[in-house]
């Protein structure tokens, strides 16, 4: 069968995605957390600027600071990636879906496309607005350096930052295709994002410097930094980090599709 068109599956998934309230609420939550916490963190930085050490001031990255809300947005956007799959299992509608589209890989691809397109739009919006709000806050103190989207590194950081959120949503979706349950999937996703981080921090320093840079949260931070200076971590370059995070998302999706196709619905 030469490639059944994906279009009907995508339009079906799009109708499903936009016709439940949780989608809108979770996207809105992502935006509010991202911009809100970004603004608070940036304001705090401005307030204690006078007490900052010489090195901290020298390596200060106004772009990364204004995008501090991403730590929270990463969790909220993951919930969207989880729900697009787990809500089908919790309601039993997965059987209706798979009976309508027996080519299960098409169901997974259509969901991934709808999820990616929606989250990339919202995430870039989060990123740009957080950045602009943050720079406005920093410019309240003339001695603090600020960044602008007309500079290449801050622009790259803002765009890749948004991209990192969309990749994390896909990672969460892939995890959920394997786990199927809402609570288990969210726990696993948050575990990979935050708890893994704590575990690695407990390892001897000589080891963990080499491991930290592979963690999704650190990869995402490297993507949204205009400069690697001033980061707590030894990181890959932003583009290498992007490639690694994309590999994680694709690997999770491949694993998920494999299990979706093999298992009974």
């Amino acid at each position, binding site marked *: 069968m030469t490639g059944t068109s994906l279009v*009907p599956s995508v339009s079906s998934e799009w*109708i*499903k995605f936009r016709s439940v309230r*949780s989608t809108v609420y979770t996207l809105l939550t992502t935006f509010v957390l991202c911009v809100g916490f970004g603004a608070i963190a940036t304001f705090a930085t401005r307030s204690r600027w006078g007490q900052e050490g010489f090195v901290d001031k020298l390596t200060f990255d106004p772009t990364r600071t204004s995008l501090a809300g991403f730590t929270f947005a990463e969790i909220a956007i993951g919930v969207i990636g989880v729900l697009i799959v787990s809500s089908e299992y919790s*309601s039993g509608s997965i*059987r209706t879906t798979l*009976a*309508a589209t027996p080519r299960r890989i098409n169901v997974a691809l259509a969901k991934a496309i709808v999820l990616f397109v929606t989250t990339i739009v919202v995430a870039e919006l989060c990123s740009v607005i957080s950045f602009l709000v943050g720079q406005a806050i920093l410019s309240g103190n003339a001695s603090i350096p600020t960044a602008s989207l007309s500079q290449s590194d801050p622009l790259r950081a803002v765009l890749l930052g948004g991209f990192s959120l969309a990749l994390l949503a896909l990672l969460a979706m892939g995890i959920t295709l394997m786990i199927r349950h809402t609570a288990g999937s969210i726990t696993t996703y948050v575990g990979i994002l935050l708890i893994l981080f704590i575990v690695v921090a407990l390892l001897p320093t000589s080891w963990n410097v080499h491991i930290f840079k592979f963690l999704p949260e650190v990869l995402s931070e490297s993507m949204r930094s205009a400069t690697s200076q001033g980061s707590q971590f030894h990181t890959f370059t932003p583009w290498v980090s992007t490639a690694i995070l994309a590999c994680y998302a694709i690997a999770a999706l491949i694993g998920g599709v494999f299990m979706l196709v093999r298992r009974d*619905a």
Partner: protein
Amino acid sequence: MTSAYPGLMSAWKTPLTMIEARNLSKRYGSTVAVNDLSFTVKPGIVTGFLGPNGSGKSTTMRMIIGLDHPNGGSASINGKPYASLKWPLREVGALLEAKALHPGRTARNHLRALAASNRIPRSRVDEVLELVGLAGVASKRAGGFSLGMGQRLGIAAAILGDPGILLFDEPVNGLDPEGIQWVREFLRSLAKQGRTVFVSSHLMSEMSQTADHVIVIGRGKLLVDSSMDEMVSKAGSSVLVRSPDADRLAAAIRDSGGIVIQLGDGGLSVAGIEAAQVGELAAREGVVLHELSPQQASLEEAFMALTKDDVEFGGSL
């Protein structure tokens, strides 16, 4: 201009629409759910799929529509595996469980998403909502629907693509008498239009009023595959006799090869010989009869007798 998706009142014209199971088997760990099951479901009639709870009916239906993978054998739709159908909803409609839908989505959006996946025109959505009597609540969220409304929405989804084959798993479960009546007539009308209608139930009495043909399974194995009429005649009969001299009559019947159960009050339940023979015996013995009536064994009894060894979770009485 005629629509590509006529209402259900028009006749179904596709000549050959069959479901075929060939040596279908399914294991869950060490439990055998379906065991070497073969049957064919033909168009134009309602075929009942009977078995006690846990006998493998739902598993069989899930395998037919490709949701569960068989461990052996195969199921096909018009000779092709379900998974190879390009637009399955236009060939097969299935109601597998009530409310297999997101509670937060409206009835109309649920059906629109399904229609989009199989390139079924949007106009068909309102058409089927009208047909099942849900037009008034089309924009209400399905989570608030009663069981009966959920069942109607499930049926609307099944007929969305105007398919020639329909599968319904326990469609009347939990419905009120009015709802049961509605489903029954709806199934019969679908069959009358020439469609293949396959309905599961664990109640023989329910099927006797709906189905023309029955397939009975127990512990995943085929027990009966016959027309309803044949099933009725196979169910066997007995004769009820009442006489003030029951003991003498009982002895005479036993002598001529009948089986007698004495009911007390002068009543005898006789099997193995016909009512006419019982009358002749009574005349010969000079025994007065107060009652002589042939009894049709109920289908329900026949069904229970058939499956009594195959009930998975039997309670002891």
